[in-house]
């Protein structure tokens, strides 16, 4: 997994609905593709979980089963009740976990 790219507004009004965009580099190997040289199936390795939590409360969790494109992109909206921290997490089949956080100030 590469370094994630997340777009989160730095500030918001209390109760405002904001849009979050996330993008991460990953092959998303489906497990259905054959190696061109050996003819063997390439083992599946996809990001199988993406989540975002605000001040510890889960906003969205995605369980990925397949068919999500290489370099997965997720966009979603959320209501910001107060200042706080949005924590993102990606986990793949090989056990790699990537996390990042963004602060949002309500003022």
């Amino acid at each position: 997994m590469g370094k994630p790219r997340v777009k989160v507004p730095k500030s918001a009004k209390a109760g405002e609905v904001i849009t979050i965009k996330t993008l991460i580099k990953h092959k998303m190997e489906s497990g259905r593709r054959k190696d061109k040289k050996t003819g063997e199936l390439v083992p599946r390795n996809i990001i199988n979980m993406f989540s975002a939590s605000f001040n510890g409360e889960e906003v969205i969790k995605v369980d990925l089963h397949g068919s999500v494109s290489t370099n997965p992109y997720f966009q979603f909206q959320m209501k910001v009740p107060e200042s706080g921290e949005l924590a993102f997490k990606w986990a793949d089949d090989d056990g790699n976990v990537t996390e990042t956080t963004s602060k949002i100030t309500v003022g």
Partner: protein
Amino acid sequence: MKKLLSTVALGIAALTIGQAASADPSRTAKLVIDGTEISTHAKGMAGGPLDELYSGWLFRSDETRALQLDDFDNPAFVFVDDGETLFNKVDGSEGKSCSSCHEAGDFKGLRPVLPRWNEAKGKIYSMENYINDCRTERMGADKWKWSKPKMTSMVALISLQSRGLPINVATDGPVADIYEKGKELYYTRVGQLDMACSNCHEDNYGNMIRADHLSQGQINGFPTYRLKNAKLNSIHARFKGCMKNIRAKPYGQGSDEFQALELYVASRGNGLSVEAPSVRN
């Protein structure tokens, strides 16, 4: 056998290039990224082959065009980030990184004038040549392959510094002969399908080839992230792909032929804005 049948199929497709039948290329869509408009349309040079220049962005569907409107939607930027990491990474015997000598911003204005004549080397230089010279001569590091991810990521990072600036390659002086050679390649029919670049990208842009809109084949957006292969594609890799599509034996990436063609094709877009890293299908 399979190859032969698909050759026949493509041959038929080539014959049935028709008027735009569906989907939605646009001559008027605006490419505005983070509040900055990037021009995707320009007037061709007087006496040049094209009166109007259109970026390939205009030939794509609404959904594909939208991917380029925000650098957080544009999937090419995961590779720009990689380019930035590589830029700061020490490599080779001299203990240097790119950032030991440069800042990425120093390269603003470089992408629009490439490829160009390098007097010291007595040869035409693409960005890939400059990057590899730095690696081998200053850093004591290995060359990167022309279209591998490290190279395309670095080319994307450096090209991005010039986003919005008009392409302005020189075609006279020491490159005049190379320009003529590139022009000849552009109009020469090759391969089993016996087609030249011009048959699609000059005679038929805007028309359909099977389910796709043919563009003018402009390279102002390269390196480009293709939905097809989900990675950055170099100019020469795209030339190679085109040649394979018309069942011709491609020239080598970084070869004299492809550099001449790169210069000529770039010059056909003189006046269009640098759009790298773009998104195409």
